[in-house]
């Protein structure tokens, strides 16, 4: 049930992202990361406004202000100060409670959006001539030996080493070398069965699916681009070790922090324009 739901959500988010995030492919990384973070910040603010009780939030904030003034006026009165501080604590809790609904409303879309953004920023595609390790994870069996799965070289990708079979971990690895740019399919054959995995080769931005996941909801959310393998499939997942993208704004290690801070700044800037209390 949950698997079907996530699959359905991924299908929708992939379709939307295919259109909305398409400019990332031709914009500079810093610009696309900044634009997306700013727009999401403003959208989040708008959704917050629509889904929150603005008058209650405003009232609570005013009460907090009043209590802060009271605190400075009666700082000599210990009992008053204590009472005001308790009230402030309660009002902060109330602010949090009033934000719960919008947070709940935005949680799932934000997770889906971040998963889509990670396709672009979490890793970079292979450059032509660059090598990477591909790992096929198999369903655990009681057999000592692993199946004879073949990875066939194509005009887009060469298989330079492998397979290295790891029976102890039920996995098989190959080393591949990128030959021509574009989104390609790696094809793995085991007898009559064929398994595929998308491979991105480019010197610029392309969506990079690092893993074709198993039918596990959390893996599916994390790697939304490719259809998961069925629960009964002998192949459970296929991973490609893509290189890190190095950039302060759109790089592997920092894109999420950059997105978070930039969207926060955008929300603060837009707040008086949209007249939102939070």
């Amino acid at each position, binding site marked *: 049930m949950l698997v079907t739901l996530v699959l359905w959500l991924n299908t929708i988010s992939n379709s939307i992202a295919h259109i909305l995030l398409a400019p990332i492919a031709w914009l500079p990384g810093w610009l696309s990361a900044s634009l997306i973070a700013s727009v999401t910040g403003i959208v989040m603010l708008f959704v917050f406004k629509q889904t929150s009780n603005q008058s209650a939030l405003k009232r609570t904030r005013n009460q907090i202000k009043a209590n802060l003034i009271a605190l400075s006026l009666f700082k000599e009165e210990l009992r008053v100060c204590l009472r005001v501080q308790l009230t402030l604590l309660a009002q902060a809790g109330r602010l949090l409670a009033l934000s719960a609904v919008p947070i709940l409303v935005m949680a799932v879309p934000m997770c889906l959006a971040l998963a889509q953004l990670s396709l672009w920023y979490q890793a970079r595609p292979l450059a032509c001539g660059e090598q990477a390790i591909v790992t096929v994870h198999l369903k655990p069996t009681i057999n*000592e030996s692993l199946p004879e799965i073949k990875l066939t070289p194509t005009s887009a990708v060469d298989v330079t080493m492998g397979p*290295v079979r790891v029976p102890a971990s039920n996995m098989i690895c190959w080393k591949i070398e990128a030959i021509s740019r574009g989104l390609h399919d790696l094809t793995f054959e085991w007898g009559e069965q064929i398994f595929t995995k998308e491979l991105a080769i480019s010197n610029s931005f392309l969506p990079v699916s690092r893993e074709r996941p198993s039918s596990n909801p959390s893996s599916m959310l994390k790697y939304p681009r490719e259809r998961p393998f069925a629960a009964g499939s002998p192949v459970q997942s296929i991973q490609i070790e893509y290189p890190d993208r190095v950039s302060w704004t759109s790089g592997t290690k920092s894109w999420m922090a950059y997105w978070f801070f930039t969207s926060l700044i955008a929300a603060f800037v837009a707040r008086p324009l949209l007249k939102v209390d939070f």
Partner: protein
Amino acid sequence: MKSRREPKLSRRKILSGAAASAGALATACWLGGCNRASRSLGKKVIVIGIDGMDPRLCRSMMLAGMLPNLAKLASAGSFSNLATSMPPQSPVAWASFINGAGPGSHGIFDFIHRHPHQQCAPFFSAAETLPGEGSIEVGDHRLQFNFPPFSHTLPKTVLRRQGIPFWDELDAKGIPSTFYDLPSNYPPSPSHYGHHRCISGMGTPDVLGTYGTYQYFSDDSPSKGLEEGGGRRSKLRFIRDSAKTTIVGPDNAMLKTPTPTTIEMSVHRDRKSDAALLIVGDHKIMLRAGEWSGWTRLDFKMSTPRPLPSQSASGICRFYLQEVAPHFRLYITPINIDPSKPAVQLSEPKNFITDISNALGLFYTTGFQEDHKARSNGIFNDDEFRQQATMVLEERLTLFEYALKNYEDGLLFFYFSSSDLQSHMFWWNSDEDALHPTRTTPEAASRFQYVKDLYQKLDGIIGDLDQRYGSKVTLFVMSDHGFANFGRQFNVNSWLRDSGYLNPRETTSVLTDVDWSRTRAYGMGINALYLNLKGRERDGIVEPDDTAEKLTKQLIAQLEAVRDVNGQQVIRKVYRSSEIYSGPAMEFAPDLIIGYSRGYRASWETCLGELTPEVLLDNPSPWSADHCADALEVPGVLFSNKSIRSPQPSLTDLAPSILDEFGLPTPKTMTGKSIFQS
């Protein structure tokens, strides 16, 4: 109203302040730029330091037409032997080059010094790590904080080379100087005026704090592992062709009892594919038998007491899968300090090496890059060592290309180590001694050919330099010493024992079981001999008067009289330090320096004071050539595209010559003279 006026005033203040700041900044930048601007007036001097390049071999190869570019340089400019330091050991020689003066000025007399107050406790001569002071204890941890209110002193490594390096003179005059991998300069000495840049070379440690410790994993290693000089062996136990092990990192010095940090590594081999998969932390590395990986970053986690954030020490290494089956053999290079984010200062200024790493990627940073220990300990065979040394050279050539691209004027120094370490392993001149102690004559000849091939490669580099710059630069190609066969080894402590100077007869090491009350002299390091002098050594017995003088004369006469079984003189000359050294840094100078004849060297055991039953032995090590002989036996080379006037140029003459090229006088601290002046 007041509250409205204030922001306007404030904005004006901000704007005028910003303008003033911008002006001040621009002025400062301009002034700074002026200060940094080169005052070499376009003068270019390039020094190529080729460690261990030998003049005899150069001459014979030039005569045979095998070094056309060096021959061209010699005929258009000059070529000469370059007198080296005594002893002709690299740290001593390069420090003499740096100071333009001998060991008495820089205080480095051997690879290893001894501490007289601790009765010959040995330490490395070029750098020393000083322990920190003060700490607080939290559970199993002992922490040091160098900020108030704690103000603990953190441990630090200090350069022991004393005196004034010649680039200080250039620096003070605004003449830029850049040194790539300069030996005897770790930690790098500071630039006082910002015109000097340097990457430390020989003497730079790995992350373990050693001169290079490889790690070797195999299924036929001793079951408990083995620590051997320069490396560590670990046994792999495969189950279904998978094994788990750990890569050992630096000690966690934050623990009360420092213990090594580790990273888990799983090894999976596929005999059919003749390949293996290594999973090291988050990294997957797939290698075929005989294949090297690229540089891999390793982060060693260091435990800290909660709630302090965890710490890590990072390093870089390369993996070499030597064999998959029947025996699995995996070699990991010493874990080098990461040049892209060095944990300790490797260059002056600090960002010099990170800038290079940003441009070139990762590279070796340890002082000894060719892993001679792996060859000596049998981890590598000759071909594997040569392959690794060639990789190092290729990396150096990439760095050299970077150095030339970023060179405008002033002094450029670039160091090549391959000629030294490959010669140690492959040199054998059969004209001097037909029989190699461990190799057949054809084998020895084929290995010697590797050295000649390397000389030819280096000759090509000089040719390239000549094409690029021609007469627009003053070019020096120099080496710190030459080379000689090392077929026989002499244990000076065993000789002292047999001659009655060191007791008792059963002594196995001067560090453990010598009777100092009956010992008058001892050896420590490669060429050094010390008297057990009263008042200087903790347990000294030799009175520093006529007794010491008489003993010195006796030792010199007897050592120079030592003959090998074939009647050959083992020691060419024994030098008194008081006669050959002068200067303010004599504290650790030995009393006598032994100058071996060609073909001989101090025995391996001698270096750290161990004794062997026999005094003279064959050298069974793949390290079959050396230069720690008498300085007159192993001079270096000096090529220049300018005429040299000095009839017998010396290493100490190069610094004054370089200064002379920039129109600067020779400082009083230098003993050398410009080779361009008669």
